[in-house]
């Protein structure tokens, strides 16, 4: 097993990895940019070293500096977390040149599976369903139309040179095909100077369901089941859960087998996620592979009882996956919300700044993976993810109730967070019924907001009393230099005196 691991990341994921290392008795080395000296991962690491200015390109993305720190501190492994260099084959290559183990897949597997096109080709070769369609342009409209009929409507025409929805037409039925073809081709010509289009099946309201796979270096590959991540705002996941409300044991087995086949074909080792789109008839189609630990890995941990980071470390150290894991079935339900420093009432405007106070939720079925603390200043340079609040319970209903309860307990002042977004999502009837898809949240946010719920009687009075009391306490703090609450009580002092007197 490793003696010391360098964590090439920051924020909540650096803290998450540190905790796994600490539990395994492995020493940790943190790295930080100029603005991260006071970050939680620096406080918790055994050792921490500065690696440059705030800009990621000059710090967290500098492979040379990371390898240099790893060598100087005698690290035998590097964990990349997610984001930053996690999917850059340059890091595992530099590690292996320096005689250091990279905790993740081999660089060749990253290349074979990581890019959308390479992944799609591999999926076709390994008999994993992809969204039906042609990747190549079709010259002849009659040929295209007959292809569309075989595929089944609706279909979508997309410009080869496309982007931003230009030269794109959804075709609902056969009668609409010729006109849609003309429009798409001429729009593509106008926008990109290239009229060529290709054809794909159009999925209505698809869900995003992904399979967590693990592969050891001895040829064993297992699936740890699915996560449903359909609640997304502008393609960014915000709520994730396991199991998916629609995945049946049969579908789980089929998707798991497809993901395992793909991982095997790509020579994959360590933790990876195969993302699929699932349509209303529960057909699934390959989307892409993430060759790293996912942000939403805790929901899988809560329903499988496994620690995925420890598993990653063990596999990187050459350990085998035990056979029994092939039969893993999820127990209970888990759900995660991503708390961001952004203002949902103000177009999700980022809200970095100083955290004046913070109260973290606790209690049954609650986990908080966090990279912040009271008094911390959230820097403006990085991703606004503050914490991941995870709840689990025996059923989806119990899990949602716990999550709502925990969100009510969670208070953070000084910066704005998107907590209110989750209060809304977690009460929407469609969400409660599990009727979600990848555009669901964007559609919800485009609808008029429900009228603000009137606070319960007394809230306004409590607020004004609090304001007045706060003002008095502020004045008092300013005049005596210490808040009234900290003046030692005479009872306590008397008690202490008696204790001291009693000591012989």
């Amino acid at each position, binding site marked *: 097993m490793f003696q010391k691991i360098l964590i090439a990341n920051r924020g909540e994921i650096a803290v998450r990895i540190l905790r796994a290392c600490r539990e395994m008795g492995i020493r940790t080395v943190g790295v930080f940019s100029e603005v991260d000296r006071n970050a939680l991962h620096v406080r918790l690491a055994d050792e921490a070293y500065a690696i440059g200015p705030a800009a990621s390109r000059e710090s967290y993305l500098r492979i040379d500096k990371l390898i240099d720190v790893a060598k100087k501190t005698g690290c035998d492994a590097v964990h990349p977390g997610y984001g930053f260099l996690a999917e850059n084959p340059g890091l595992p290559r530099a590690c292996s040149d320096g005689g250091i183990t990279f905790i993740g897949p081999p660089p060749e597997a990253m290349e074979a599976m990581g890019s959308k096109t390479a992944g799609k080709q591999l999926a076709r070769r390994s008999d994993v369903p992809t969204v039906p369609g042609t990747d190549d342009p079709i010259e002849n409209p009659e040929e295209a139309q007959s292809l569309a009929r075989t595929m089944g409507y609706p279909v979508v025409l997309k410009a080869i040179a496309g982007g931003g929805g230009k030269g794109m037409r959804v075709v609902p039925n056969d009668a609409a095909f010729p006109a849609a073809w003309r429009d798409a081709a001429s729009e593509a010509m106008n926008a990109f100077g290239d009229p060529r289009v290709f054809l794909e099946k159009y999925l209505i309201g698809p869900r995003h369901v992904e399979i967590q796979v693990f592969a050891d270096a001895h040829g064993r590959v297992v699936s740890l089941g699915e996560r449903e991540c359909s609640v997304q705002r502008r393609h960014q996941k915000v709520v994730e859960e396991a199991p998916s409300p629609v995945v049946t044991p049969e579908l789980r087995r089929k998707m798991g087998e497809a993901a395992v086949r793909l991982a095997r074909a790509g020579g994959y080792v360590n933790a990876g996620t195969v993302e699929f789109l699932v349509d209303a008839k529960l057909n699934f189609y390959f989307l892409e592979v993430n060759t790293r630990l996912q942000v939403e890995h805790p929901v899988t941990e809560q329903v499988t009882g496994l620690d995925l980071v420890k598993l990653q470390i063990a596999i990187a150290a050459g350990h085998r996956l035990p056979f029994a894991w092939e039969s893993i079935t999820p127990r209970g339900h888990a759900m995660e919300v991503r708390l961001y420093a952004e*203002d949902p*009432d*103000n*177009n999700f*405007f*980022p*809200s970095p*700044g100083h955290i*004046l*106070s913070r*109260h973290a939720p606790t209690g049954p079925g609650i986990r908080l993976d966090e990279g912040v603390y009271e008094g911390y200043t959230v820097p*403006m340079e990085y991703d606004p993810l503050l914490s991941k609040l995870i709840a689990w319970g025996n059923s989806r209903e119990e899990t949602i109730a716990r999550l709502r309860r925990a969100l*009510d307990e969670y*208070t953070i*002042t*000084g910066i*704005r967070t998107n907590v*209110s977004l989750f*209060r809304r999502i977690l009460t929407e009837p469609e969400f409660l019924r599990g009727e979600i898809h990848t555009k669901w949240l964007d559609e919800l946010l485009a609808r008029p907001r429900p009228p*603000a*719920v*009137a*606070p*319960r*009687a*007394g*809230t*306004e*009075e*409590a*607020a*004004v*009393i*609090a*304001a*007045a*009391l*706060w*003002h*008095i*306490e502020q004045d008092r703090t300013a005049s005596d230099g210490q*808040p*009234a*609450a900290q003046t030692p009580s005479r009872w306590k002092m008397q008690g202490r005196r008696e204790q001291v007197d009693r000591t012989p």
Partner: protein
Amino acid sequence: MKFDVHLQSVALGARTRVVELERQGSGYSVKIDGVPVNADAMQIAPNTISVLLDGQAFEVHVTPSLDGTIKLQSGPHEFMAELRDPRAWQGRKHGASEVEGRQQILAPMPGKVIRLLVNVGDEVEAGQGLVVVEAMKMQNEIRSPKTGKVERLQVKEGQAVNAGEVLCVVV
């Protein structure tokens, strides 16, 4: 002590309540709008106040803003409040201590500039509105701290601003 609390919230709109707190033993006796209420309030942590109102429990988190207003959060509900001590306020508001020199007017919170109330070169009075910034779905008029002339406007209507960003300069 007696305070006028100007309160704004999405759910309840804008209003003013008069709160009186008088020391009584270790706590306070409380009147709201002149009517005694059965309230027990204590600060349990910095900026966190627990209020028992006829036995109903509330916890209120207080966040001061740069412009002197405070934000009050109780569960999912938020209020923006401005506190005036009727005795102290007179002196502060209408007193002589007006700021001198070149003044940068900063955005007190992240938001969106929805209206410019002045043009470059305009003469302004102390307390006159300069820019309206919308934040938390509420419009906040940012006022001039001094009598002078608008030297520069750093923002345009519709522009998003960060807390602390310079909106305009009054000399």
